[in-house]
C-alpha cells in the first residue's frame, strides 16, 4: 500500500470517527435570545475523561473518598 493511500485511508477513518462522536451542546437547537450572562462554553465529554473514569468506578470511590465524621447535632426539637 502506498504512503498516499495509507494517508487517505487514515483521513477517511478520522472523518468517520468524528461523525460518531457524542453531540456537542453546540448542536442543540438554536436559542433565540442571548443569555444575560455569558454561559459556560460546553464541549463534548471525552471518552477518556478522568473525572468519569473515577466517578463511575464505585470501588475506586470507596477506596479514595474522604471519610465524613458525622457531627452530632446539638439541636433539640423539631426544626
Amino acid at each position: 500500500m502506498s504512503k498516499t493511500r495509507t494517508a487517505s485511508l487514515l483521513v477517511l477513518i478520522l472523518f468517520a470517527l468524528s461523525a460518531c462522536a457524542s453531540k456537542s451542546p453546540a448542536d442543540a437547537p438554536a436559542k433565540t435570545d442571548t443569555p444575560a450572562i455569558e454561559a459556560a462554553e460546553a464541549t463534548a465529554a471525552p471518552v477518556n475523561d478522568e473525572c468519569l473514569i473515577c466517578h463511575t468506578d464505585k470501588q475506586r470511590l470507596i477506596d479514595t473518598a474522604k471519610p465524613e465524621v458525622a457531627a452530632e447535632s446539638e439541636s433539640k426539637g423539631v426544626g
Partner: protein
Amino acid sequence: MAPLEPWQKVLVDGEKFLPTDHGEIACVDCHGGVQSPDKETAHEGLIASPSAQPEKYCGECHEEQTTTYPFALHSTQQGYWTALEARSVPENHAQLEEMFGNHCATCHTTCGECHVSQPKNVGGGLFTGHVFETTPPMTRSCTACHGSRVGNEFLGKNEGLAGDVHFREARMNCIKCHAGTELHGSSSDPTPFDQTQGRPAPDHRYSGSEMPKCTDCHETAAPGGDDNPMHQAHGDTLSCQVCHSITYTSCDGCHTAISETSGRPFFETEATYQTFFIGLNPDPSEDRPYKYVPVRHVPIAADSYEFYGRDLLTNFNALPTWLYATPHNIQKHTPQNASCETCHSGDETLFLTEEKVKSDELEANASVIVETLPPLVSVEKFLNAPLLPVDHVEHASNSCTACHAEGIREAPISPEDHLEYKDDNCSGCHKLQQ
C-alpha cells in the same frame, strides 16, 4: 431518609447519565477542576455546585427558569425576611442577618438541589448517578427539607392521623400541585415585580396569587359550582382546609445559638404538639378572601434570637404567632365537616379562642382570635331556609338588612332570632332561586 455514604454521594451512573443531554457536556465545563488521574490535582478549582450560579451554568438551555428563579421564594428566602422585618426594626437587622446566615440561609435552594442531588442541609448526594430529574424525587428533595410539618402530614407519618388523600389515594407527589411555574418564580425584575400578574412578586408564601388553588382541579367546589350546600354556604368565607384538613403540627419557642463546645449553630424548640384550630384570617385579600382559616402556632418567640442581641424582635406583636396555615393532610370527610352543628352549636373546641392563646401572646394574636362563635344553625334550619325571589338577582349584595330590617318596600322583616346572624352573609342560607 438514611444518610448516604461519601462515595454514594458522588458516584456517577455512566449507563444512565451519559446518554442524557447533560451527559453530553464535559464534566469540567460545569465543575471546573483539572483532567488528572490524581484526585487532589483533579479537584483543584472544583466547582461542587455549579447551579449556585444558575445563569452561567444553566442559563444557556434553561433561560426562562434561570431568569426568574433568582427572585423565587426558594432562592431569596424572602418569606423569612418579610416576617423578620415586620417583627423588628432596621437597627436590629445586622444582628438578625448574622442569625439568619448561621441558622436559616442553608435552606436556600439551587437548581441542582432539586434536580440532581439532595439538598446540602440534609447532607447532599446525587439522586440517581447524576441524572437530572425533571420532577424532583419527593422524599429526597421536597420533604427532605419540608419534612417535620408538611412531609409528615402529607405522608401520614403523624401517629393516628391519615396522610393526605391526594397521596393515599392518588399517589400524587408535590409537583402535581406545586408546579414549576410556582417554584421557579415568575419575576425577573429586582424590584421584584411579577410580570405574569402585573403586580409585585410574592414576598411570602401566602402573598400573591393562591398557588396552588384547590378549585383549579376541583372546579365544582367553587361557590355556584355544585349542589353541595357546604360549598355553597361557605365556599367564599372558609378556606378549603377549614373543612378538609385534620389535626396538624404546631411548635413553640425556637431559640437559636452557637455552641460553646463545637462552635456550630444549633436550635432548641420548646414544644411540638398536634392541634386543629380555626382562626380568623388576619389579612383577607382578593386572592384569599376567607374569613376563617386554620391557624398553626409557629415556633417564634419574643426572645428567639436573644443569643444575637437583646430585644431584637422589638415589634414582636406585629404579627400573630398563630399563623394562616394550609395543612397538607386533606381528607374528603373530616370531623368538622360531618355536620353543621360541629361549628354552629356554640362549641368552641375547634376555634382559636382567647383561652387557647398564651397570655403574653394575646396582643400578637388579636387579629386571629375568634371572639364570636358562628351562629347556631341546624341542618334542618339551613336546608329549609326560604330561597330568594328570582328578581333579587339585582339586589345580590350583603345589604339585605337595608330593606329587611325595617320592612322597606314591603320586604318581610328579618325575624328576631336572626339577630345572631347579623355579621353573616344572608346568602349563606338563603340561596337565589334558579
